[in-house]
């Protein structure tokens, strides 16, 4: 009987968090347990249906993702997309031949002019790759040979909420699962004591736009795949700390009695769900030890503190989250999602953007180098970027020294590193106005298809049927961008 229940649970109960713990070896974790073997193989790709087996479709390049989302949309024109022409033509109107009637947000649609504005900050080329980076990002500039800058991202949304939702869930509206939830569903967790999908929030000093839990939602997938928010407060995970007056030994005594009582219940009602419940309590107990240990940054060696910068010891900063992301990822968390708010520079860009850059530049570069020195970069995909770009013309009052930029969905820059991405390259190009893409466009759906591919998943086959329709992260589109693959 026990065996039968066990078997049934393996087959059916995907709704238990960290299925492996709930049923010995559950189907959720099956894929991740087998991935190490797949890594060993170099010969041809193995096609297995992920819907039924939980296995990857072909040998993955990356095992884990760390996505440093720059929320609010950092300007590509002051970071990675160098456009000297804009300085030369500063104050002149954006030619209609370039704009081609592209729609505007409600914030600039009333403007009677669209004066071009060049970057207030200087650009230089760095590394053997010769990648252009602005002076705002001196540390990222040092790692250009490790990263791949994509200058040709484009999206369909023109406002923050739909654009962010699109980047995270593959659809502008609707309650669809987030990318991390898809990964959790498709690949499971590598660490049975930690959630497969973890979320970290930080806030910069620039104009912010907020984040919302639907960005890390499980959508129609089981809520076991929901992103688990790690907070900077006393409780690294909500409700994880025992109350004062309940020490570890007391908690253990309680759980032992609880298990006794629940077993009595099971003897009476025969419901296998009771056994699963007992396991969930044991797992919760293990998390109570493993999570605080992992999130305690105070014991990090000096070399690490120097690498990420002193901010990494201040809970809730981007630097602290970057370091925590590395630790979570190293411990086997499949998908670590960071959000750093404050990149929405509609005005006062020359003053606000340096603060944002200062908060993120050093730790972003440190994370890449830290993974590298640990030999983890090859199997960890790092992503850095926002939800759309910013206009090449000024929003509001234009002066040489101060200006703002509105939302621009037609072209923006992000960068990726590790995890099977070709290092030291720049992919895609925009025109000399930085307005339209002229080479190798990468749509949001393509971006998702590529990430899934690097994780060993065919984006057309990671499917979940809900209310009669087969859903994918890439919906009905998406092409894998081969050009950025190592």
């Amino acid at each position: 009987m026990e065996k039968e229940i066990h078997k049934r649970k393996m087959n059916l109960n995907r709704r238990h968090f960290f299925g492996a713990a709930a049923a010995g070896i559950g189907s959720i974790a099956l894929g991740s347990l087998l991935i190490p073997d797949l890594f060993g193989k170099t010969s041809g790709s193995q096609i297995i249906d992920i819907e039924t087996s939980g296995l990857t479709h072909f040998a993955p390049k990356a095992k884990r993702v760390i996505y440093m989302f720059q929320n609010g949309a950092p300007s590509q024109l002051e970071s990675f997309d160098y456009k000297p022409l804009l300085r030369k033509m500063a104050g002149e109107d954006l030619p209609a031949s370039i704009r081609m009637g592209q729609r505007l947000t409600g914030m600039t649609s009333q403007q009677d002019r669209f004066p071009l504005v060049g970057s207030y900050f200087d650009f230089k080329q760095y590394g053997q790759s010769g990648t252009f980076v602005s002076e705002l990002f001196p540390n990222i500039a040092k790692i250009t040979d490790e990263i791949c800058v994509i200058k040709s991202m484009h999206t369909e949304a023109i406002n923050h909420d739909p654009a962010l939702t699109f980047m995270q869930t593959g659809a502008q509206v609707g309650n669809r699962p987030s990318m991390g939830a898809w990964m959790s569903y498709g690949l499971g967790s590598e660490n049975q004591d930690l959630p497969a999908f973890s979320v970290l929030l930080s806030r910069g000093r620039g104009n912010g736009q907020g984040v919302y839990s639907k960005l890390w939602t499980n959508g129609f997938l089981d809520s076991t795949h929901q992103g688990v928010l790690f907070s900077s407060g006393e409780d690294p995970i909500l409700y994880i700390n025992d109350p004062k007056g309940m020490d570890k030994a007391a908690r253990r005594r309680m759980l032992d009695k609880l298990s006794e009582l629940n077993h009595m219940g099971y003897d009476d009602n025969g419901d296998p769900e009771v056994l699963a419940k007992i396991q969930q309590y044991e797992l919760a107990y293990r998390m109570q030890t493993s999570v605080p240990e992992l999130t305690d940054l105070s014991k990090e060696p000096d070399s690490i503190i120097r690498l990420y910068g002193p901010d990494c010891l201040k809970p809730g900063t981007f630097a602290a989250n970057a370091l925590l992301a590395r630790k979570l990822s190293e411990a086997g968390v499949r998908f670590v999602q960071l959000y750093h708010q404050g990149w929405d520079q509609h005005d006062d860009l020359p003053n606000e953007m340096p603060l944002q850059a200062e908060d993120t530049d050093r730790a972003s570069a440190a994370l890449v180098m830290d993974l590298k020195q640990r030999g983890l970069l090859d199997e960890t995909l790092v992503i850095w970027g926002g939800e759309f770009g910013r206009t090449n013309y000024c929003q509001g009052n234009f002066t040489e020294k101060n200006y703002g930029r509105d939302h621009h969905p037609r072209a923006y820059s992000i960068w990726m590193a590790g995890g099977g991405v070709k290092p030291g390259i720049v992919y895609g190009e925009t025109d000399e106005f930085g307005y339209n893409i002229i080479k190798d466009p990468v749509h949001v759906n393509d971006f998702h298809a590529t990430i899934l591919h690097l994780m060993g998943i065919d984006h057309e086959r990671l499917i979940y049927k809900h209310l009669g329709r087969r859903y994918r992260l890439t919906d009905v589109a998406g092409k894998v961008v081969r050009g950025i693959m190592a």
Partner: protein
Amino acid sequence: MKLSPYIKITLMVSGLFMAILFYSTSCHHQLTSTVASEGMIDYNFHIRPILSDRCFKCHGPDAQNREAGLRLDNAESAYAELPETPDAFAIIPRDLKGSEVYQRIVSTDTSLMMPPPESRLSLTQREKDLISRWIAQGAEYKRHWAFIKPQKTTLPLPDDPWPYNPIDHYTLARMEEYGLHPNPEATKEALLKRWYLDIIGLPPSIEAQEAFIEDTSPDAYEKVVDRLLDDRHYGEKMAIGWLDLARYADSHGYQDDGLRTMWPWRDWVIHAFNENYPYDKFLTWQLAGDLLPDANKETLLATGFNRNHKITQEGGVIDEEYRIEYVTDRTNTFGKGILALTFECAKCHDHKYDPISQKDYYRTFTFFNQVPERGIYGTIDASFADPPNMEITQEDITSILNFVNKKDSTKLEVMVMQDSSSFRPTYVLKRGVYDAKSIPVSFGLPESIMPYDTSRYAPNRLGLVQWLLDPNHPLTARVYVNRVWQQIFGRGIVKTTGDFGMQGELPTHPHLLDWLAVDFIEHGWDIKRLIKQIVLSSTYRQSAQIRKDQLATDPDNIYLSRSTRVRLSAEVVRDLILYSSGLLNEEVGGQSVKPYQPNGIWAAATSGRGLLMSYIQDHRENLYRRGLYTFIKRTVPPPSMLIFDGSNRDQCEVERIRTNTPLQALVMMNDPTVLEAARVLSERLTEQHLDNTIEIAFRKILARLPHPKELLTLQSYYQSELQSYNDNEVDACDLLSIGEYPDNIGVNTIEKAALMKCILLMYNMEETIVKI
């Protein structure tokens, strides 16, 4: 197998619901029978699920994306000469060799085989056999079951003693088909807990338990059920599911997510259930209360249903883009919530599976597109109730809207529906894009469900309601009774409560579903009557004990040969804890409240604007309101609710997933709400100096007497904790300091702390938050 002669005849004759014997539901293959293997193949139950899932995407109702001009979803097209291959036919009834469909599905040539390899879809051998036999038998097409008007059938097993009411005749017949037998009746304790939790969402008090056990009168059961249906908490319990469907929340959603004041509409929902407004009236007022000839402030308040969608406050959005988004949300909510059809699939193209064309979508859209509204009204603090809205005056509170629990005299406005004086032209939007207008459309609904007769129905939402409530409507009643069934049994007769279309699951008890639907209409859409009927049935009253043979043959309890142990919803978990501890504030309705919540989670996610930037926790009695009154900020919903699978109210939902996770264990162990409840109950019991405090707490929390072994375990735990505190009273004080509820510090500290732990242990027992 025992089948009455009547059943055999019905099965053979009607054909329509010729058992699901052969059809197996998604994760469930044990329950197949060989009965149908020699019989007739039924299009609705055997063939359409296969064709719909594997073929209709390219050969179905969607004209834009149809391959080779072939459609297989109706007989006329399937029997016709193939448009691209003269002299060939997709299906020739009774001629397998001549039927291209057969040739293609059995072909091993990758350039010919169907479905094509690149579709990543395939047919199993059994499915191929079924299709072949169906063609050989004549390839008879039938309308989709859900679009045929329901009718009552003669009750099966008329002489069996087990059935209490008609429901049981149908469930027993199904059980017998699969060799299952009903469980014996549950204990009186279990039944009482079940009724209380199902009807009012609170556990029975010890007094209620004792009174019921002692009551041996023949109508003891009925008396309890009647009393609970009359209880004011009934409306609260019923409201929970409707609030999910109506995507009710206390904030506007989208990134700024400012405050809105729709809670008076929520109070109306509770009132409507408590007053037992029939479902037809309940729907009419919500969908068209503003258009009624005798409209008043109450009927107008009810229309807030269609304004519960999210509203953006993000500077710089394009007004029309969002206005269209709101109309879309209303249309989709109507489709999913009221009709159980996936309307949203037809926004950008014809529906790929169901007969809902893109034009149908925008004809339905027209009803909801007449509101004089804008996509954005300004910044976050501009309005808690965007126009059109209605003011609720102090006078209303004392008269027509006396169910609105408003205590202060501040101005209160709620959003309501209104139609513009002139018709707003409505167009099919290409690819669903807000400004890509194509052909103009007018009011209408999908013909395939039921024609929209403009000579009978008004050209506005009132007409929509008339159509919906027409006695011939195939869906309205079925969809509602199915959702009530799901609410009680944890699973609908149609499992996909939001999809009665081709891709939805088939009903497990089709005759029962139809009987319930027709009976519901015949008795004036009386919701309380429907619930009473269900909860007094023998089916409902079975014990939940799982026998090994049931686990082997019907692990998901599809055929109801036992009661399903269902974990309580997020709100009711909270209510049970507060009620059993004596802390619950039983006030009904009113402004939503902000109980304990972990620090900083609103502040971490805010855009930095508006009244909801940071969480300002309530105090005193507002800490102990029922779960459904907890403030829902859409972008950061209450975490303990989400962890127990509560809805984020982003859009219409008709079903909650039920998970079992370690995060739930953490909430039950460490949420201050649970800890405080354990403390307060412990203090109250300790101060009474009784010798059976553990037993009393157990009965309050688990609604039954403990078994001797359980009591021993709890007592030994209590003793061990007493001892552990003997040399550490500080810990005991610390534990007792949790929560804002005042305590009597310094008295019996050690006893209180030990009993508190014991109570906490009981709250964490698996059975506590499960219907037994």
